[in-house]
């Protein structure tokens, strides 16, 4: 089957075609660029929502609830779930589906697991292309679930329109709330495992942290939602908060600002890819640094100078 056939299949709701295309996109090969070209002009209407937080906070379980509820309401949902690649073997255990296998049976839900491969920021190399693919395929919501992440894996904020941070009680005191990083960036905070002791306290601490934010007129007020997979509470509020943020983006004109941020992030990542591919075939530069013939800064300049003179198809 040609790429054109796969693209037209994916655009008309064929899951098999979509899934095959996702593999092409993930391979980051020449076919991936071809797919990118074929998808141009499609999509642009998905609400792209990031979901991040520490391992075991309940990101996948929350997503299972959100996907099920949204699907019941007639919305289509794609989930891109990233789990870590082994730095030793290059393999990965992708286990996010475990919580979502019921939800995945619905015809308007598609769940795809991604290994983080070479990236260390909680995302995967093909993250942006994968979002673009599901957006083009017409999914109303595209959720991006990061690797279980700590404090400074903030790159996700540049990839999504709305960011949901999931926290659960029992992980540190209020000083954690003062720390810089992902805590500052979320649009919606889910305090999960609300049935456990400490959830109310965590929610109060979050509220008090957010109350110290500088206020601008027309600014989005981050929401805090208590939820629990045990009792099922909070998920409707969570969807409402996400939708409200989406509406806020559209009304406030911040959507434009977001597109700019995304464009910058995409371009910077493409530059990085180009450098990585070129560096991989110019190992002698690193050897020269190791031998003391070049400084790291000198090597960087040499590499970048020569990269601009190489015709693209060579690497």
């Amino acid at each position: 089957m040609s790429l054109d056939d796969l693209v037209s299949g994916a655009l008309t709701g064929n899951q098999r075609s979509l899934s095959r295309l996702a593999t092409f996109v993930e391979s980051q090969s020449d076919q991936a660029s071809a797919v990118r070209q074929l998808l141009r002009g499609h999509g642009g209407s998905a609400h792209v929502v990031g979901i991040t937080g520490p391992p075991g906070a309940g990101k996948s379980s929350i997503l299972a609830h959100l996907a099920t509820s949204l699907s019941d309401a007639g919305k289509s949902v794609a989930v891109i779930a990233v789990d870590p690649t082994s730095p030793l073997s290059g393999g990965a255990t992708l286990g996010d589906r475990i919580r979502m296998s019921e939800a995945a049976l619905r015809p308007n839900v598609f769940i795809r697991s991604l290994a983080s491969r070479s990236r260390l920021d909680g995302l995967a190399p093909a993250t942006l292309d994968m979002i673009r693919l599901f957006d083009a395929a017409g999914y109303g919501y595209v959720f991006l679930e990061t690797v279980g992440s700590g404090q400074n894996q903030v790159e996700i904020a540049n990839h999504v329109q709305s960011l949901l941070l999931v926290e659960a009680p029992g992980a540190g005191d209020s000083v954690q709330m003062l720390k810089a990083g992902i805590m500052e960036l979320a649009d919606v905070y889910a305090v999960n495992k609300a049935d456990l002791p400490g959830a109310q306290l965590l929610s109060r601490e979050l509220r008090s942290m957010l109350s110290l934010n500088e206020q601008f007129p027309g600014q989005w007020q981050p929401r805090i939602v208590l939820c629990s997979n045990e009792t099922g509470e909070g998920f409707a509020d969570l969807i409402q908060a996400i939708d409200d943020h989406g509406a806020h983006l559209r009304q406030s004109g911040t959507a434009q600002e977001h597109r700019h941020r995304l464009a910058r992030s995409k371009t910077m990542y493409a530059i990085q890819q180009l450098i990585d591919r070129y560096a991989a075939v110019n190992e002698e530069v690193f050897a020269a640094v190791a031998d003391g013939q070049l400084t790291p800064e000198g090597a960087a300049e040499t590499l970048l100078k020569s990269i601009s003179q190489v015709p693209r198809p060579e690497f």
Partner: protein
Amino acid sequence: MTTRPLRILIAKPGLDGHDRGAKVMARAFRDAGFEVIYTGLFQTPEMIATAALQEDVDAIGLSILSGAHMSLFPRIMSELRQRGLDDVLVVAGGTIPEPDIAEVLAMGIARVFGPGTSMSTAIAYVREHAPHRPDHVA
């Protein structure tokens, strides 16, 4: 053309709570450089086929110790075929009695790995027999 890791789905069909073997195999494939999608316990044939479809796996490893393989395997194979997943390599492991093996193979399952199979045997088999796809050069 870049190479990519092979993707394998490790699945536990039916009412079978014993997943030690499945977890050991998931770990072994991970350590051999595979991307392993683990479904967890109590999966219906439909869930397994849906996961294989959405994850676009090269291979599926079915782990079963409940004795229900003769009723579950044909349903899994039929769900896979319905979704057009004819080229996916399917192997099985667990406790499948010798007299059942010929029939299991006739269902389209490529190989049955019984108790005592070394992990490297199973890994080498999957690596060798996974379908050659246009996007994969190993």
